[in-house]
């Protein structure tokens, strides 16, 4: 009996104090919250997979490191024809996929055409969600008749290193799409070899090559030594899943991971106190806002909507809920983006003014509304319930009784999209083009949650989309913002701030405002 006890103790001590070391190679471990689901960039639509495919694949264009300027990637340069209907990409020469296949015009046409054309032999391995929601291809009704013409007409090879994308109509906003992961260029050889299993065996041109994927646990990548651009500075890259934010933070404190996807505000505060951890942050292209349903009373009245804008104290909400994860927002697009109108004075927190406006609108005694609280945490709104509670108290001060309602996330969006709400929380993480914000979110379409329609506004942002001259577009967008500010269909809440907590030996990380994760810049000291 005694002997067993000693043996057990010895084993325990051995277990506790033997830490295996494999120091020959530099391995960067990234702790993320969601497991990857599929690794084909065309089918990916969630963060758990997109941050992995962003390391394995390249698109034709990219963002400058840390900025929103579009720079060449697999395409060395591009030209847009005078009528705006023809984009010519001149491809970088000598680039090879991880499997040795040449990255040429055939590969580019293959990568894009498989998403565009129903009769493409590899179209069946979709669904190509972003390609569809971006309106690139024709949409048909159930009976087969054309419902909506797509933006892209055809994708053609003109020579081995030149590809033309032909459009049905001029669309200046399309260019940002060629920086995104869903337009990544994939190895045609690998797609043909793996078929449906390409999503488990991704082959691209990126700074890291795919090695292994243990579902729900980790993905292992290794450095692509033949990368055409700035090469990775570590030998291996591991994406490890930690679904629980507290466990993820503790893994960083212990040094089991080198850098993590940001946890909630509470855990961030804990991390800040740790001397071995440093936290980088940068304003991102994401915003949280409140929609008022303009089809319902009393929000059909502009004065009421303005009153609500004066009744909400954003700073209180930012301090209590967002902490370092947000800053007070004014216009429905991020201030770092071109086209942002700096000359509009934002609505001030002024309950007196709010009451005055309500009285003028015939609601001196206030009214009751439902306030939909976002049931999930998002970069633009970390805690919908808490935001709701603070807003409820603030609205109460001007006589508005808000009842907080919430549903599971699926039902929530169903009801919001169907207009079955008075006030709801929503948000957007978009691309660095004002069109993605001002046109996409506030013209006819299911994303226009406030159901607000204004012909002058729609005309301005639609015209801006068809011109490629940035100065002209800026003028139109600035005017559009004046209208939306005056009409006030929404209450702007916060611009999300992107953070990256990491160990103090992690160097060179760059946060991209578009939330794109690029890990090849990182070196380990």
């Amino acid at each position, binding site marked *: 009996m005694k002997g067993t006890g000693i043996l057990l103790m010895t084993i325990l001590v*051995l*277990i*506790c104090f*033997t*830490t*295996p070391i*494999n120091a020959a190679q530099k*391995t960067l*471990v990234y702790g993320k919250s969601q*497991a990857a*689901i*599929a690794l084909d960039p065309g*089918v990916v*639509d*969630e963060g758990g997979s997109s941050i992995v495919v962003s390391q394995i694949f390249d698109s034709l264009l990219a963002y400058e490191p840390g900025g929103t300027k579009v720079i060449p990637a697999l395409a060395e340069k591009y030209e847009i024809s005078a009528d705006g209907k023809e984009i010519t990409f001149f491809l970088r020469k000598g680039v090879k996929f991880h499997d040795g296949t040449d990255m040429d015009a055939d590969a580019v046409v293959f990568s894009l055409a498989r998403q565009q054309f129903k009769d493409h032999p590899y179209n069946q391995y979709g*669904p190509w*969600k972003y390609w*569809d*929601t971006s309106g690139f291809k024709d*949409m048909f009704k*159930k009976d087969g008749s054309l*419902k909506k013409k797509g933006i892209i007409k055809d994708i053609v090879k003109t020579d081995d290193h030149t590809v033309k994308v032909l459009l049905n109509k001029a669309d200046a906003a399309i260019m940002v799409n060629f920086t995104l992961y869903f337009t990544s260029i994939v190895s045609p050889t690998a797609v043909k070899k793996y078929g*449906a299993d390409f*999503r488990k065996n991704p082959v691209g041109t990126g700074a890291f090559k795919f090695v292994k994927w*243990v*579902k*729900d*646990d*980790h993905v*292992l990548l290794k450095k692509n030594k033949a990368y055409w651009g700035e090469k990775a500075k570590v030998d*291996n890259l*591991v994406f*490890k*899943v*930690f*679904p*629980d934010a*507290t*466990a993820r933070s*503790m*893994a960083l*404190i*212990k040094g*089991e991971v080198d850098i993590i996807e940001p946890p909630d505000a509470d855990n961030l505060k804990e991390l800040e106190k740790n001397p071995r951890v440093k936290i980088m942050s940068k304003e991102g292209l994401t915003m949280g806002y409140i929609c008022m349903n303009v089809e319902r009373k009393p929000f059909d009245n502009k004065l009421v909507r303005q009153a609500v804008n004066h009744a909400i104290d954003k700073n209180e909400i930012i301090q209590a809920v967002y902490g370092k994860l947000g800053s007070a927002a004014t216009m429905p697009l991020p201030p770092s983006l071109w086209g942002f109108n700096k000359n509009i004075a934002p609505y001030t927190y002024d309950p007196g003014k709010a009451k005055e406006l309500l009285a003028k609108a015939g609601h001196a005694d206030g009214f009751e509304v439902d306030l939909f609280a976002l049931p999930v945490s998002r970069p633009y709104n970390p805690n919908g319930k808490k935001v709701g509670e603070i807003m409820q108290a603030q609205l109460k001060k001007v006589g508005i009784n808000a009842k907080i309602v919430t*549903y*599971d*996330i*699926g*039902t929530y*969006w*169903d009801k919001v*999209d169907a207009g079955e709400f008075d006030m709801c929380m929503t948000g957007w993480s978009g691309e660095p083009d004002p069109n993605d914000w001002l046109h996409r979110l506030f013209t006819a379409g*299911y*994303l226009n949650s406030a159901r607000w329609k204004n012909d002058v506004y729609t005309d301005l942002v639609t015209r801006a989309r068809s011109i490629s001259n940035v100065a002209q577009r800026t003028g139109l967008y600035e005017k559009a913002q004046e209208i939306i500010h005056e009409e006030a269909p929404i209450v702007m809440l916060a611009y999300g701030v992107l953070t990256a907590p990491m160990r103090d030996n992690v160097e060179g990380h760059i946060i991209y405002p578009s939330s794109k994760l690029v890990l090849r810049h990182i070196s380990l000291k």
Partner: protein
Amino acid sequence: MIKYITKRLILLIPTLFGVVTIVFFMMSLAPGDPARLALGAHATPEAVEAMRHELGLDRPLHIQYLNYLKQVAVFDFGKSIKTGEPVLYELLSRFPATIELSVVSIIISTILGILAGIISATRQNSMIDFGAMFAALVGVSMPVFWLALILIMVFSVGLNLFPTGGRINIRLFMDPLTQFYLLDAIVYIFREGDFSYFLSALKHIILPAVALATIPLAVIARVTRSSMLEVVRQDYIRTARAKGLSERTVIYKHALRNALLPVITIIGIEFGYNLAGAVLTEEIFSWPGIGRWLYSAVTARDIPAVQGGVILIAVVFVLVNLAVDIFYAYINPKIRY
């Protein structure tokens, strides 16, 4: 015996039929549109409609049900909406992790639970007995996620004895053969003479296994205690003592053997619960098992995945119970089928 086993296996069919039916209709009653969730918050209504058609959700419910029954009969659980992979493949690739965790955890809870039960019973109404039973009560009532976080904070971050989560040190780049990491790591010992894989796998499994073991441990301790108390009052124990056998022989040979019978049933049931109920433990310890997978399938309303997962767990649960019953008959000569 073979007749009994055959009978029990045949009885599996109506049980599973019931499980499939209940799971199917419960999932269809739950709110939220799976097609909508599959495509993300900002999908176009046309895309959602097309997806509903593809998933067969636009057909009448009874047709959907009959189609599903037909599929399940040939072990086709459909494809996961979320990943597009066959549900059976998804399930089987995650099951080893859960089984490994459950087995280690049930070993811990069985050994410690039976020990605690015996000590309590032999020292009935002593301070040790009260202490052990109070601890068992706390064990049963403790929220697992809270305990898990406390374990990490104390033993992992504070004392730096164990890692915070995962199955093995990722920097070791182990290539698993069986997906049972402890076994795989033993292979490494023989193949490369390297113990670090096994130690790492063992270190990783201890905290989650302890967290998962608390409730079964408490239950097993209490059942052992009451069963022991009942047995020691039997005539044959008095006879054994009258024969002049040592107290040790009386307790461990005569009393414990008989007292363990109800405990074995409980262990079987608790093992079944462990397989299905490890959601929170798996979530917090980043353990890539079936509980976590099922949980995310439920939140994503991935209907084929949830149905397949619940059916698999039901099958395993029933099989574990069957195994326990057979074992029971084997060790207890009083029972003959």
